[in-house]
């Protein structure tokens, strides 16, 4: 029996690679601070430091034990849903409805852990979709009903249903999956986050034409394309070690992740703009809230999951 059954050699290499990247990021930040003392790099340093924390927690959570992995991903969902429900206007009458929405998290992650695909895929889109309005009519408050039931379910779909696809990736083990389910999870999370960073950096360096100025004035065509090219390259490079994808399939996976990540990011920006806020929270110094970090994943997790599920499982 192995001590850490989740850790395979390719997974270890991938994690080592991530920490090498973080070392590079830290070295770059330190160099920038030294070279240009007149400029303020506080946010950049905070960002990099938060990355270290996130990467370490993530590595431990997916490497040590599978139950811990499910628990961790469920907890991320909980934080994201809590942030969402704290940001949107809610009705006092719906306190108990929101409680049911929270309860959906352990249930949904339980279906994933049991590999009960049918239940996993309909529980929130069907059963919870019907249960929440039912609980609301029991309270009886009709003023603002449609808005309340719509926003709460949208929040659960995004932060619980979409993100729980990450957990289902964990159990997609097969002889053709070199690094097990944990490898697939690492693949989509790493590429999504790296795509965000690559878009940000290429946008800063080359950005000229705004791509969607009404929602996200800082997003540029050059940034988007920089992210796409980087993510495509990394996908082709890494996929053979972590996924069962063939080369042409990994190209498409890269496209799905980079475009999906972009759209998820901008969708959450639209939500924040609607609410009149800049960041969803302050739990991750330099980044903002949990939603600011998982916004892209809410799109890439289900999109990548269904792509690979259709092709190989």
């Amino acid at each position, binding site marked *: 029996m192995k001590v850490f059954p989740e850790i395979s050699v390719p997974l270890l290499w991938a994690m080592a690679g991530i920490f090498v990247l973080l070392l590079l990021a830290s070295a770059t930040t330190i160099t920038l601070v030294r070279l240009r003392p007149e400029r303020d790099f506080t946010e950049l340093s905070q960002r990099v430091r938060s990355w270290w924390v996130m990467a370490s927690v993530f590595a431990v959570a997916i490497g040590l034990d599978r139950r811990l992995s499910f628990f961790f991903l469920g907890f991320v969902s909980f934080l994201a849903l*809590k942030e969402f*429900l*704290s940001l949107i206007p*809610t009705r006092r009458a719906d*306190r108990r409805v*929101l409680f049911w929405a929270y309860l959906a998290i352990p249930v949904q992650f339980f279906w994933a852990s049991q590999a009960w695909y049918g239940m996993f895929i309909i529980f929130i889109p069907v059963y919870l979709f019907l249960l929440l309005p039912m609980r609301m009519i029991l309270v009886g408050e009709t003023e603002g009903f449609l808005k309340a039931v719509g926003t709460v379910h949208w929040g659960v779909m995004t932060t619980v249903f979409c993100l729980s696809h990450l957990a289902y990736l964990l159990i997609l083990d097969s002889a053709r999956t070199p690094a097990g389910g944990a490898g697939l999870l690492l693949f989509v999370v790493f590429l999504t986050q790296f795509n965000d960073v690559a878009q940000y950096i290429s946008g800063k360096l080359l950005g000229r034409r705004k791509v969607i100025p009404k929602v996200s004035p800082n997003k540029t065509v050059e940034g988007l394309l920089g992210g796409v090219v980087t993510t495509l390259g990394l996908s082709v490079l890494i996929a053979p070690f972590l996924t069962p994808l063939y080369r042409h399939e990994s190209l498409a996976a890269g496209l799905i992740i980079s475009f999906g990540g972009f759209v998820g990011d901008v969708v959450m920006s639209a939500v924040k703009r609607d609410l*009149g806020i800049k960041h969803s929270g302050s*739990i991750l110094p330099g980044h903002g809230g949990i939603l600011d970090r998982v916004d892209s994943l809410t799109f890439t997790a289900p999109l990548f999951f269904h792509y690979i599920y259709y092709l190989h499982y």
Partner: protein
Amino acid sequence: MSRFLQTLFFALIVKPIALVMLGLNVRRRNRLPGAGPAVLVANHNSHLDTLVLMSLYPLGQLRWLRPVAAADYFLRNRLSAWFATKIIGILPLDRTAEGGRNRLAPITEALEQGQIVILFPEGSRGEPEKREAFRTGIAHIAKARSDTPIVPIFMYGLGKALPRGEALLVPFFCDIFVGKPFSWTGNRKTFMAELEVRMNTLANEGDFPEWE
């Protein structure tokens, strides 16, 4: 013994609820006075207010914190009285008596002993997330101890998580804005106006969604 139980209660129940189930977003935590005498003045929406404010302090400092709480409510039976005075460490305040300023004597005494008093000048939790007019008791205290720093604190979210009359805790992030300490201004009217202005400034810092 009760000090040990207090530490246990805050370490195993209050801190996990505050940090994991709710999640605190504290602006300028460094302004919290590390040692007494000092008065923390906050708006009041929920039973959680006291516990969350106390949870901002390290366990070792809990015994210096003395929340002022209504005697008629918290001392209504023996169990509640034991819990309120021994585990939380409240300073019971007689809300009903006609005794006037004497009622505040335990508070000034606590300040003289270098304790940190937590006071909710609204007097009761009232309607959740709605502020009520501040009572003037705080002015008497500030006057009696004119060198004591008064630290205004505005909290948002706990009234949604656990409003008055509800037993079910629903998780919401809680925002806490710590203001600059000030002290007695010379007369009651200007002092109360000053407190009001400082609280409003803190409240306006946040961007809070509607809740009704």
